[in-house]
């Protein structure tokens, strides 16, 4: 097992034991023609600390840690035009993905993939409530 595989396995075990389910939704199109693709992720969540609140974060913000495993297993977001950039990581900014956690829809503000030897082993997300 490579170091990256070990990191992912450890994170998956921790999330299986102590994490929660959340649904990542990617939107395609706009208005009445809009459609989407969902994938269920295992996540660990936390609210901003006191220091982070002082630094400008809001109480509605949320920090998420998730694993690449469910995204890769689901082959998220499905078939893409051949030659297009792979887009399985959650998207922030314009046209951002949404995360449904504890029955609340939240916008992804920041995506921070952690890599070990060129392999994504963990994904940190910052959400706006």
């Amino acid at each position, binding site marked *: 097992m490579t170091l990256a595989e070990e990191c992912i396995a450890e994170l998956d075990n921790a999330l299986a034991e102590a994490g929660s389910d959340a649904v990542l939704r990617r939107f*395609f*199109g*706009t*208005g*009445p*023609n*809009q*459609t989407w*693709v969902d994938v269920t992720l295992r996540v660990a969540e936390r609210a901003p600390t006191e220091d982070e609140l002082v630094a400008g974060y809001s109480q509605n913000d949320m920090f998420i840690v998730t694993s690449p495993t469910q995204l890769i*297993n*689901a*082959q998220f*977001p*499905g*078939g*893409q*035009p*051949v030659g297009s950039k792979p887009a399985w990581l959650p998207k922030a900014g314009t046209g951002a993905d949404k995360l449904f956690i504890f029955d609340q829809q939240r916008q992804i503000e920041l995506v921070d993939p952690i890599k070990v030897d060129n392999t994504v082993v963990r994904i940190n997300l910052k959400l706006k409530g």
Partner: protein
Amino acid sequence: MAGTYPLAIMSSINEGEVVFTPIKYLSSAHAVTLYGRFVYGSGGGQLFANIETSLDSGSTWIPIACFAFTTINSSKAFNLSGLKDQISPIPIGALSGDEAISGILGDWIRARVVADADYVNSTLDLRMTAR
């Protein structure tokens, strides 16, 4: 692996052919249900959504279903079994609109969409449940 997978989602449909990356590792799937949903805006003419399977990791592709859409909203589905006997060889070739062949199911499946004109504000959503 069993599950539901998007094969192609297009919110911008232009004249020509678009080939989509395949869904892989479906060796444990004995059947697939294919669902095509087309929401029409304006423009366009004829749209064919071909579903193809590969038994050689994407070197060659066998058409197994073809959805045909025109200029109206439409939703259609096929169910294809990989366990159905085919004791007479099936010629491999393009399928006509709204046609499918059952009994041939590889472990890779992809969509190939062909439009004969530009569609405006229209959406094509192709999904598959493998089980």
